[in-house]
């Protein structure tokens, strides 16, 4: 099966084409072209043109995009209204009242996604058991819809209290709105989330409505362009839950692709692990502005249903109740700016120079000293081959940016650069700890997979600090997300709040609930004309000790749940809980959410192993230079050209391995090129 994966980012559009029948060494073709906002589909077409891929060269097309998250963060969604339960239209604005920036008495809360004059109420009320207290007054919708039409609204979010339990009123309201105004986009909360907490669900629905016409137009446009190119097979979208789904399904639920790119990266790492037999991985993706990390245990990627858009330690952000790969993100990347706070202390990030003006060394007017500048100053990045030689390093600008800090701190430029790298590393170590140590995982049991432009520069240092034995720098690290997408299974998640006590006496209720969810998912897939051959289900329960609030997600076997299985689940919960929180209780266990993932597996890609020419490792050395390895001192070391490396080669530290868009620092231990061309460093 010939496959194409494309990933649209704010700056670049990546493409990977895989043809299992092509000659070895040419089975994988990669391309990077400029993104083309606002018509992003043109970038995709340009990438296909560049690689001369025709419609008939593709049996399978998968697509990831930052369009949804960018639409949300740039507030470029359509004009959206909210219809909610009478008495509760201000829930969206009052939110939870918290102000995470504790010592800032001028804290500004996130602006509500729907302004108050477009938040409307109808008479209806359902209680927490799903009983109707006040029937929906459907007649109230007509004048309301007329007003919203006059206001020029393009989308309507419908969210009623306790609709996660009983969606009847939402369904009736949506039907009526569609009858009155067929052209408007409308989405109800229960379609997106069956979890309680009205502010979070209302916000999710408002966000989803505001991007829905955008997603619809975008995916329809892309589909049409693909058809023009002669493509007639299945097209899929990469979702934040780490699965793919059909264009048709995602078109009406665009919000589910909010973290499409990062999710693909994590799944790419999981695939790499499967291919190379490394099941326990910590992933680290270092870009220009942020570093994102996640943990994969036994090949399983962790999901969260508590995703919050734009949250920082000092900003509450916007909760979105959609399943998203559990990623910890911090504001430290290549463009992160080094600065001195009010009392003269050195800090790095979270402010970033981004791509424009970029680090001082870009010579595009950036006045700030960044992490990338520190790598250049220490000789880790080759000034002669910066970004594959595309950018000529502006040493004067870089030295001037460094000089300003050096003067105040009274340190040399070299000391400054070392300091910046150490602080950046420490920030990343804390993020890596959050996904590992803080959850009871021992980093010594994992390998660190690094990708993105900056992964190879920091990986070994971080691994040493956390005693992670091995760093893996995958082949094609810069288009890694596409690689992940190409082998992602079709996946739909459904999470439903059904609080109950987990006891052997209600094993059959647990079993029935799972089966009902699975039947619904199967029916939905079939009605979307998805080929369900090979369909399997992953079952999870969000559980807690009776009386607690917060839950732990526990995997549940996909078979008949009887008393014995319930006991196993209880034991598994107690074990998982103890690993994370260091104690176990004998008290009763409650289930809060049932979570089922329907998975239709996609045939795995087996890339051809690169051949060997018998070239010696010495022949891969491009040059030599002085490199400052920080705490490991300054060494004159060899610079290797990654493109020339072949499987089986060994490189002893200290060394630098260069690629056009990334640099790999081998400052201790040794690096080995594995059968697939990945670089594995024992630190």
């Amino acid at each position: 099966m010939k496959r194409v994966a494309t990933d649209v980012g704010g700056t670049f559009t990546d493409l990977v084409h895989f043809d299992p029948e092509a000659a070895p060494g040419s089975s994988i073709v990669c391309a990077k072209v400029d993104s083309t906002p606002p018509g992003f589909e043109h970038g995709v077409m340009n990438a296909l043109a560049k690689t001369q891929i025709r419609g008939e060269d593709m049996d399978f097309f998968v697509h990831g995009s930052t369009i949804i998250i960018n639409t949300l963060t740039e507030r470029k969604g359509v004009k959206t209204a909210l219809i909610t339960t009478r008495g509760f239209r201000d829930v969206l604005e009052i939110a939870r009242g918290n102000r995470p920036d504790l010592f800032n008495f001028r804290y500004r809360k996130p602006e509500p996604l729907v302004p108050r004059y477009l938040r409307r109420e109808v008479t209806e009320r359902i209680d927490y058991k799903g009983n109707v207290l006040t029937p929906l007054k459907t007649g109230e919708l007509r004048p309301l819809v007329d007003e919203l039409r006059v206001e020029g609204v393009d989308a309507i979010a419908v969210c009623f209290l306790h609709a996660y339990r009983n969606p009847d009123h939402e369904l009736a309201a949506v039907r009526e709105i569609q009858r009155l105004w067929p052209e408007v986009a409308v989405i109800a909360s229960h379609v997106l989330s069956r979890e309680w907490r009205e502010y979070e669900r209302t916000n999710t629905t408002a966000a989803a409505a505001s991007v829905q016409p955008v997603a619809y137009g975008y995916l329809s446009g892309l589909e049409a362009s693909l058809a023009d190119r002669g493509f007639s097979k299945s097209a899929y979208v990469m979702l934040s839950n780490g699965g793919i789904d059909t264009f048709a399904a995602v078109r009406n639920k665009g919000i589910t692709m909010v973290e499409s790119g990062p999710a693909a990266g994590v799944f790419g790492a999981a695939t790499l692990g499967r291919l190379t037999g490394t099941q326990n991985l910590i992933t680290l993706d270092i870009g220009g502005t942020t570093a994102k990390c996640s943990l994969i245990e036994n090949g399983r990627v962790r999901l969260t249903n508590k995703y919050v858009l734009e949250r920082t330690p000092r900003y509450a952000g916007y909760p979105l109740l959609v399943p998203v790969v559990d990623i910890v993100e911090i504001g430290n990347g290549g463009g992160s700016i080094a600065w001195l706070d009010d009392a003269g202390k050195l800090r790095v990030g979270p402010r970033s120079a981004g791509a424009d003006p970029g680090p001082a060394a870009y010579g595009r007017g950036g006045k700030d000293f960044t992490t990338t500048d520190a790598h250049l100053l220490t000789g880790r990045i080759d000034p002669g081959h910066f970004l594959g030689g595309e950018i000529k390093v502006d040493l004067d600008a870089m030295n001037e940016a460094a000089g300003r800090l050096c003067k105040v701190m009274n340190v040399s430029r070299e000391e400054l650069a070392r300091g910046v790298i150490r602080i950046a590393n420490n920030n990343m170590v804390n993020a890596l700890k959050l996904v590992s140590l803080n959850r009871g995982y021992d980093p010594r049991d994992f390998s660190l997979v690094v990708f993105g432009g900056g992964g190879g520069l920091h990986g070994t240092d971080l691994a040493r600090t956390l005693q992670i034995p091995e760093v893996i720098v995958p082949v094609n690290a810069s288009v890694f997300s596409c690689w992940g997408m190409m082998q992602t299974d079709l996946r739909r998640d459904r999470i439903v709040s059904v609080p109950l006590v987990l006891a052997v006496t209600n094993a059959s209720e647990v079993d029935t609930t799972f089966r009902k969810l699975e039947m619904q998912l199967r029916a939905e897939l079939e009605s979307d004309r998805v080929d369900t051959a090979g369909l399997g289900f992953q079952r999870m329960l969000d559980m807690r000790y009776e009386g607690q609030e917060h839950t732990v997600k526990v995997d549940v076997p996909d078979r008949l749940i009887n008393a014995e299985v319930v006991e196993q689940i209880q034991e598994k919960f107690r074990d998982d809980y103890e690993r994370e929180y260091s104690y176990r209780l004998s008290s009763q266990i409650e289930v809060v959410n049932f979570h089922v993932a329907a998975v239709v597996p996609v045939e795995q890609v087996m890339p051809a192993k690169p051949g060997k020419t018998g070239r010696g490792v010495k022949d891969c050395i491009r040059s030599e230079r002085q490199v400052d390895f920080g705490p490991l001192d300054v060494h004159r070391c060899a610079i290797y050209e990654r493109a020339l490396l072949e499987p089986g080669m060994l490189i002893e530290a200290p060394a630098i391995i260069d690629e056009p868009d990334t640099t790999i620092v081998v400052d201790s231990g040794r690096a080995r090129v594995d059968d697939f061309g990945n670089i594995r460093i024992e630190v």
Partner: protein
Amino acid sequence: MDTLADSEIRIYRALPGTDTGTDADPVQTEIVRHSLNSAANQMKRTLIRTSFSPVIYEVLDFAAALYDTKVRLLAQAPSIPLFMGTLNFCVEAAVEGSGGVDNLEPGDVILYNWPFGTGSHAQDTAMIQPVFTDDGTLVGYSAIKAHWLDIGAIAPYCTDTKDVFQEGTFFPGVKLYRGGKLVDDIHRFVLANSRMPAFVAGDILAQATAVSIGARNLVRIVDRYGLEVFRNTVERIFDHGEATVRSYFEKIPDGRYVGHGMMDNNGVDDKPIPFNVIVEVRGSSVRVDFTNSPEVQPGPVNCPVASTVSASRVAITMLAGGNQAPCDGHFRPVEIVTRRNSMFDPNPPAPCFLYGWPAMQSMEVIYHAMSKVNPETVPACSGGDLCALVWWGTRQDTGEMWGDGSPFPVGHGGSISGDGSTMMHAAEAATRFASMEVMESKFPWVVEQCQFVQDSCGAGKYRGGMGYDLGFELLEDAYCTPTLERTRTRPWGLAGGGEARANSGTLRYPDGRVEAFTKATGLPVPKGAVLTIHAGGGGGYGPPEQRASEEVEADLKEGYITEAFAREHYGNL
């Protein structure tokens, strides 16, 4: 902490810096600071995720911090600011109560809740674990003070106690864990004094687990960097905090600035209690003077000195702390002066259940004082309260006792940086109010409404945040202790801005009768009644006539204000 005391006046200062003779590496310092903050955050996360009471996991009514051996704050997880500056008092008192430093062993956890040591009411119970390295060196303390649902008092929540012994059971520094082992006698004794022992038992375990996680992480940090490097970097961290606050006050003209506050009453007598706080700036130092405070009160609005000190430090940190999480160094330039046996420094057995209300208000009074010299630096007054409601009752179907308490947001004052929002009072910034869907599933009520009230904000160039109404319709008979404060005084505006709506409460009985309430202990709320809090708005900042006309129009369109309000405050439209 260094206390200078004569018979009448007490002065509180943080310990001055010590010169370790060596200069710690600035980068190392930054790394240790991060690691300490991360350790404190992990304590917080553990407590939230393992606790059994909404007041902890939803409301986040606790503070978690790490201290060095001199009981100087190393790091604190973002939690209730007002608790922040009291934990050092708790550590000192707990250690002293349990027999002093020499009596500490690895694995000990001390329980302490005497209000005149913790600064809080009896329910806020501190757990302190001394932290030892493997070789037996004491390197600091891991501490959490958290709100327990009930630990015995005349009611689960009180507004009219006459002495502290009506307010709960006290643990004057007893070891709940000795050498890592739970002391069963103490544990049983504690639970026997609670109306809700199951919740309390779960929260005790969560709290003990969280302090031990803090202790383990502190040891890890000391081991990693070595004790000497650790101590040197800590000095640098403190110096940095001190420098931040000093650089702020250097820019403020020297002088004495007076802020005015007003408590509605003391919960027992229904007389307003005016008070003032004097903020005196001299060079890079600041003195917060409470010596003019009213006499100790016969009702529970007395604020034990630890919370007076804490409120002052929080207020100053918010003003001058460079938006950082504070450490002990931030407090060095700040001196707090109180008068013994006054409302802000009561002696036992003065009642102090509502200690938080004067403390909270004193923060805004400090800003009020600072506004005299520099109104641009502070916001106008908020609703000035938590509008907290504490509920309890017996469930009809199970016969079990239930209880819950929650604070609610208020409108916040406008400031030079824009309109005010509706959110929690600054003293409780980290807390949030519970989801109504979740509340309805646990407690016998249906929420009737939660919506802004037009014209409840103070007018101004930058208007205040909105007040709102939140109503609960009871499905079973229950009791409620409302604790409304600042119902008699409207939130002030600044620099020409207008006043906002004050807080109030109403109870509508099933027969249609409506009664107002403010503070009440155990108010019976029968089935079918609707209890509503009318949360206050925030004061405006700057002359209303300077508000941009498009902003006024937007407020009208959004329904924040009526046309009458616009005409009255903003003139011709």
